[in-house]
């Protein structure tokens, strides 16, 4: 029994042990600051390689599932089960001609292609991929994520503005409006959780869920839904994919980009989508915690499950219109997030931490809020179901035709 536990423990900590072993090897011939420096460098390298490599399977995963949703196979030509499709795509993108429009603002145009990728990788730094597997456990973890995440907006607006293309400009404008509006509910919905934890650090958020013995999705279901909705909009995924609304504004902000620069935008988009799933996992789904399987496995299972939900939404939902998008954020998500925050603060004061009573109180609170929303919104939601009128004959009198 103990042996099995030992093995499990070993698998669980394999990456951590690997890094200890590596730094121990370095310590043999390097001074302390050198080891630290190299270790930091190595961690960054690992994260970037992970990010780039994960595109390969995320892309295939997405296309396969979309294919299944659409009653077709998805990629199945290159590599076993089409797994290498992404490699083929990348080679295609890399060998394409890199076009810069004559009238574009060249410096910003080129800069904008690189800019969105940097913040996406920066977010990966604070994500705890497993027990002890975090590149930098910042005490301001979530704040850092929000701050860095904002940078993506600027990059996309740069792209939209510098292209000198009206579709790109429209896409850029939409992005700014959308991302700023949705950042607010996205942050506010998590603040409730942060209140319960009392810390901004991502690792403490996960550990707090261990102490509650419940993931925060049980305590804060409303906040989870709000966060996930807002986050989907934040990364411009369907049904909030207005900035690149293909059927309306061609490709939005990246209309004019081709080749490697276009690939950069795709890369940023995929990693962003992965990041929001990872953050939702960490904050709401208990992060790496789970029985039997190693911690990092649990983290990825949960994250990819959420990613599957994203793909599912992309495969089924139509897109919102720009004014409806704004209304949804400001009139629905923000008030709900605020209400959730205030009630959470209230309940958190009244009930003891880490107790069953507390958990039940939070659940009741959420149920009450949801019922209230239903009561207020239901008359509006229950629209009259439009039916067509079936006219058996023409309504006009019968007249002899000539």
């Amino acid at each position, binding site marked *: 029994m103990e042996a099995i536990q030992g093995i499990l423990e070993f698998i669980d900590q394999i990456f951590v042990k690997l890094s200890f072993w590596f730094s121990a090897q370095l310590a043999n011939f390097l001074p302390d600051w050198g080891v630290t420096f190299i270790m930091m460098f190595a961690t960054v390298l690992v994260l970037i390689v992970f990010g780039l490599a994960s595109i390969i399977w995320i892309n295939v995963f997405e296309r396969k599932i979309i294919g299944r949703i659409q009653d077709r196979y998805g990629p199945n030509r290159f590599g076993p089960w089409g797994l290498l499709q992404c490699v083929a795509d990348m080679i295609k993108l890399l060998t394409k001609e890199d076009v810069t429009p004559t009238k574009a603002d060249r410096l910003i145009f080129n800069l904008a292609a690189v800019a969105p990728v940097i913040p996406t990788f920066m977010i990966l730094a604070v994500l705890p991929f497993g027990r002890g597997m975090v590149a930098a456990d910042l005490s301001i973890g979530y704040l850092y994520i929000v701050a860095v995440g904002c940078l993506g907006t600027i990059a996309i607006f740069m792209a939209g503005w510098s292209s000198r293309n009206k579709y790109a400009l429209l896409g850029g404008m939409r992005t700014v409006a959308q991302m700023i509006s949705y950042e607010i509910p996205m942050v506010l919905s998590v603040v409730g959780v942060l209140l319960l934890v009392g810390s901004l650090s991502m690792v403490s958020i996960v550990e707090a869920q261990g102490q509650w013995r419940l993931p925060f999705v049980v305590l804060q279901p409303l906040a989870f839904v709000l966060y996930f909705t807002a986050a989907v909009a934040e990364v411009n995924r369907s049904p909030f994919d207005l900035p690149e609304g293909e059927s309306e504004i061609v490709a939005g902000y990246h209309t004019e980009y081709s080749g490697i620069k276009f690939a950069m935008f795709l890369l940023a988009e995929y990693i962003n989508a992965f990041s929001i799933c990872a953050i939702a996992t960490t904050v709401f789904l208990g992060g790496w915690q789970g029985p039997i399987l190693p911690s990092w496995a649990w983290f990825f299972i949960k994250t990819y499950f959420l990613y599957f939900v994203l793909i599912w939404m992309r495969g089924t939902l139509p897109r919102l219109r720009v004014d409806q998008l704004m209304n949804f954020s400001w009139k629905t998500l923000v008030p709900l997030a605020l209400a959730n925050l205030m009630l959470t603060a209230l309940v958190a004061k009244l009930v003891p931490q880490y107790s069953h009573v507390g958990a039940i109180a939070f659940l009741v609170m959420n149920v009450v809020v949801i019922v209230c929303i239903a009561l207020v919104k239901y008359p509006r939601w229950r629209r009259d179901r439009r039916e067509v009128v079936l006219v058996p004959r*023409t309504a*006009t*009198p*019968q*007249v*002899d*035709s*000539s």
Partner: protein
Amino acid sequence: MTAKETFDRLAAKFPQFPLGYLEGKDTAILVKGENLVGLAQHMRDDEEYDYCSSITGVDYPDRFEVVYHLYSTKKEGGPVILKVHAERENPMLPSVVSIWPTANWQEREVWDLMGIRFSGHPNLTRILMWEGFEGHPLRKDFPGSEDEYIFG
């Protein structure tokens, strides 16, 4: 009501308009160009022919002819067909866009392909051919055989 009855009634109502009665597969009423708008107004307002289905230009050897097919969405029955003749040299007819807005593009098409002008049309420009195209392709004298393809 038969087309003959329609014709008789219209002829009695508008003694000032000389109308012609054209027997055929589809019976038509021949109108003079200057009376077209007056008759069209009457057809729409008093006879409930609110829907102008098609406007066609035909290039006959001695004349141009524009055919209006009128239907009614309020009462059933076949069309009332108005035919208007225009002379071969510089053909010009009054526009019925003010009566049936649907005539807008159809008259533009007739102008574009057949070269019949419509006076009073709000925007009589080419619609299917490009601006600056010379000639009117549906005219019989326009080249159209295989070795005379037109490339722009």
